[in-house]
């Protein structure tokens, strides 16, 4: 812990400026405002006037929602909480003078600067990357570009077997555009999902009619004379005619603004466990921040997930308004996603390939669309993590079980408490338990609920 005076400027009317209005920046701003009524808070974004949920961008393209629907707070929220919003791009940062310059607005000075600039799509340097109809997918501008790029087209190609890749497939599919999906690994999201889970998702992708090509990468893109992409070549020597290429091979911190400044940057803005950069009163959170040392042995130096962004923002906001600053200590890892119709939740540690001394139990429904995995320490039998596909499980339950290192038998004996599927859904908990008993020779049972308590929910 660090004393407040050594952490940041605590003057009563300090001006805190946040670059970026994503989940990290906004959570940080909200946390500061809850605990400090006096600070002047300014939030800058060139992308959008108001905070919107980036994870929901795909639903705008699919017609599930309009832009108004993906704003987590109504527009009056910002003024009511005295957040000044600047909808403009920052062009230059003067860290010595504590000054920001904009494309259009007049420059401002800050006392505390919080960098929450997020990511940009990774590029690989393919031949033909500059062709029109080739794009990444990260923000509102990309969405608008994609509207134009995919208008009246018949076939599209998506490169990169991760979360944005499969989202792009689903988006294009919703507009009746046929899709070829190139995935480098042996199965979908090979860096994160174990083989069984990956194959389950592979089958589901194909069930939707997507032309999924595993262990395939793109070599080059080629265009017609008009500068529009018209076909791609794969490493297998195939040529695929396509009118759109979605590049989704990952994201990288958006730090171009700070190149050639005194701010220390590697891939992202380097920070310590308190989110401090090398310059006093300048902090970085979210996708753009890179920890000098991993927050935890199971964590990465750059965390680019909604939930970690929220935790970064919350922790920094607390530290800036507290007597003592605390280090960032993430708890049990969790994440979620949805692959077309199959929901995915994960808690704790489930690596793509089993580590040594790690036990694993995997169950799959005969329909091949629901899967559940528990990993545990082979020696101590303590639960390490869970993957759930096509069934919903309780965050609170697994957070508690993993934190308290419950033995796997105890987890299985109480697994019925983890069921989070809606009412009247077939419960898979019993099948999972049966499979577990069968494999490990255990006799674990769950208490049968009486008709009355099932009818009224009174035993729960």
């Amino acid at each position, binding site marked *: 812990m660090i004393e407040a005076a050594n952490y940041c400027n605590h003057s009563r009317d300090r001006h805190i400026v946040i670059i970026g209005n994503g989940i990290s920046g906004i959570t940080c701003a909200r946390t500061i405002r809850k605990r400090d009524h006096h600070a002047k808070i300014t939030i800058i974004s060139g992308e959008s006037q108001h905070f919107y949920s980036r994870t929901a961008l795909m639903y705008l393209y699919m017609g*599930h929602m309009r832009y108004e*629907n993906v704003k*987590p707070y109504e527009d009056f929220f910002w003024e009511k909480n005295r957040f000044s919003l600047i909808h403009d791009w920052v062009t230059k940062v003067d860290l010595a003078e504590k000054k920001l310059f904009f494309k259009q607005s007049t420059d401002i000075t800050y006392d505390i600067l919080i960098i929450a600039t997020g990511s940009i799509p990774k590029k690989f340097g393919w031949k033909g990357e500059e062709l029109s109809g080739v794009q990444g997918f990260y923000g509102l501008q990309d969405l608008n570009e994609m509207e134009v790029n995919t208008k009246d087209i018949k076939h599209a190609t998506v490169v990169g077997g991760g979360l944005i890749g499969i989202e792009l497939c689903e988006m294009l599919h919703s507009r009746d555009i046929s899709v070829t999906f190139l995935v480098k690994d042996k199965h979908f999201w090979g860096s994160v999902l174990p083989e069984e889970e990956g194959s389950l998702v592979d089958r589901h992708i194909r069930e939707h009619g997507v032309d999924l090509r595993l262990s395939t990468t793109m070599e080059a893109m080629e265009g017609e004379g008009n500068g529009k992409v018209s076909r791609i070549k794969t490493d297998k020597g195939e040529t695929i005619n396509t009118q759109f290429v979605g590049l989704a091979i990952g994201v990288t911190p958006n730090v171009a603004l700070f190149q050639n400044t005194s701010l220390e940057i590697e891939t992202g803005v380097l920070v310590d466990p308190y989110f401090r950069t090398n310059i006093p009163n300048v902090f970085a959170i979210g996708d753009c921040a890179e920890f000098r040392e991993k927050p935890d042995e199971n964590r990465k130096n750059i965390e680019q997930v909604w939930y970690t962004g929220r*935790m970064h923002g919350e922790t920094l*906001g607390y530290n800036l308004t507290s007597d003592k600053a605390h280090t960032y200590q993430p708890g049990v890892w969790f994440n*979620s996603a949805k692959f077309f119709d199959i929901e995915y939740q994960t808690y704790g540690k489930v690596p793509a390939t089993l580590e040594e001394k790690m036990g694993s139990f995997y169950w799959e429904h005969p329909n091949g669309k629901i899967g559940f995995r528990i990993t545990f320490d082979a020696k101590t039998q303590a639960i390490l993590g869970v993957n759930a596909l096509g069934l919903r*499980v309780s965050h609170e339950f697994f957070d508690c079980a993993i934190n308290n290192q419950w033995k796997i038998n105890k987890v299985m004996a109480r697994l019925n408490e983890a069921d989070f599927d809606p*009412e009247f859904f077939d419960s898979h908990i019993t099948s999972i338990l049966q499979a577990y008993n069968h494999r490990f020779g255990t006799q674990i049972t769950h208490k049968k609920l009486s008709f009355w308590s099932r009818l009224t*929910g009174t035993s729960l």
Partner: protein
Amino acid sequence: MKIIQYLGLALFVGGLLLFSLIPFIGQFTLDAEITDKKIKEEHQELLEVLKPMYGNTYSHQIAFVNDFNNYFDAYNDRLKEEEKWDEVIYEDYAFSITKASAHGPVQQHPWLFFAGALLLPIIGALMYIFPLHRDEPDGIKNNGTYFSSMKNRGWLGILTGTYLIGFYIILYWNAEYLTNLTDMVDGLSMFLSGEPASQWFLYGCLYTLAILVMGIRMFRRYKGNPYQIIRTYSVMFFQLAFAFLIPEILVLLNMPWHDFKNIWPLDYDFFFEYRIEGMLGSGALGMFMLVWGIILIILGVPIFTYFYGKRWYCSWICGCGGLAETLGDPYRHLSDKSLKAWKIERYMVHGVLVFAVVMTGFTIWNYFSGFGLLGDATGMLHQWYGFLIGAAFAGVIGTGFYPFMGNRVWCRFGCPLAAYLGIVQRFKSRFRITTNGGQCISCGNCSTYCEMGIDVKWYAQRGQNIVRASCVGCGICSAVCPRGVLKLENKSEKGRINEHPIIIGNDSIKVEN
């Protein structure tokens, strides 16, 4: 498959056009015999008043009704001028006399029109509905909702809303123009209740058919989601059996028309004199109707709502809810989610509850005090409530506004029973929508598709359970959530309202919301 669907749409639109044209066909001739049969003894004067119409054959309904109204109103006006107040006729004879005077194709071949204007659109609709999502895996089907002219206040939506509003206005206040349509369903009405069809029987048929056909659409749309499917079966059953068939059969048995699942104050005239007299005058079954109705009000609502939340009624049993959940499903996202709308909602819905309670209080007091002092005031209250709330709000706005303001306008802003159920649900119930820890990504699907206009994500994104008086427990928020965050459940009251939830996952510090 596409061809079958287009053909189905064509049949549906064709049938609907025929339905809309039926009021304009046929001839109308009035004679003394008809008049004599339809009027009460004390109104014999009308036989003379309507004499100029006798023997005239009107080639369409509007001219006939206009003439009838002219003669009828002129007579009444004369009486008023002469201050013969006790002779003024308040009975509405326009519908019954028009119906009796009609003769034309509809009267000659009612079943033919029944087939063309009712069966054909149903068949068409089913041809459109059955192939929906046929080759798609189970999952939520909101693709293109906001690109749809029908679902997003485009010209199709505006047209549909206008048609519905027009229909309701004619149904409530100018039903004499609908007699041809009622003649078309006379056969069915005679079969069920032994009486010719009134406009209310016609309305009951359309209402029930809408719930059944659009209920089948729900099965297609929410396939793979048992909660939605079972719930839809439930509203289809309660509409068909309790709201449509049983009341008609009661009439056949010389009992008062009675819907056993309708509860005061939604059933606002339950304590009106004519209803009470009707029940008291119908023997043991009538007495049961009265006692059952009162039990539902004072025991049924609190007990069931304690265990299950108001959903046991609003989205599983209620007829208004049934229509909203089936016919109204394509419009659920059009409800206003703003804080302002919520404020207006609370004033309005509780205001209507107060209005209903006061009116009923007066009625009961009046009943026991022998219709003394308050007779006129009560009558006035009944009239205004019936006009403003019963007809204009629940009917015209409640359904006509589906394509404009979402499918629960009535339930949200106007239903006094929803207000009563909501108070119980908010303060004494085991029902809540549980938020799954910190998994919410603020995407907005839950709020968007909440028909009651609840900003669900406002709670979910802070890890808080959703406990709101207005939630009807339709379960769509849980169904559309892409991260498995929301679960409707009946659980212990402890921890139901978690005012200061912590987003789990962050061990550094604890920040309260």
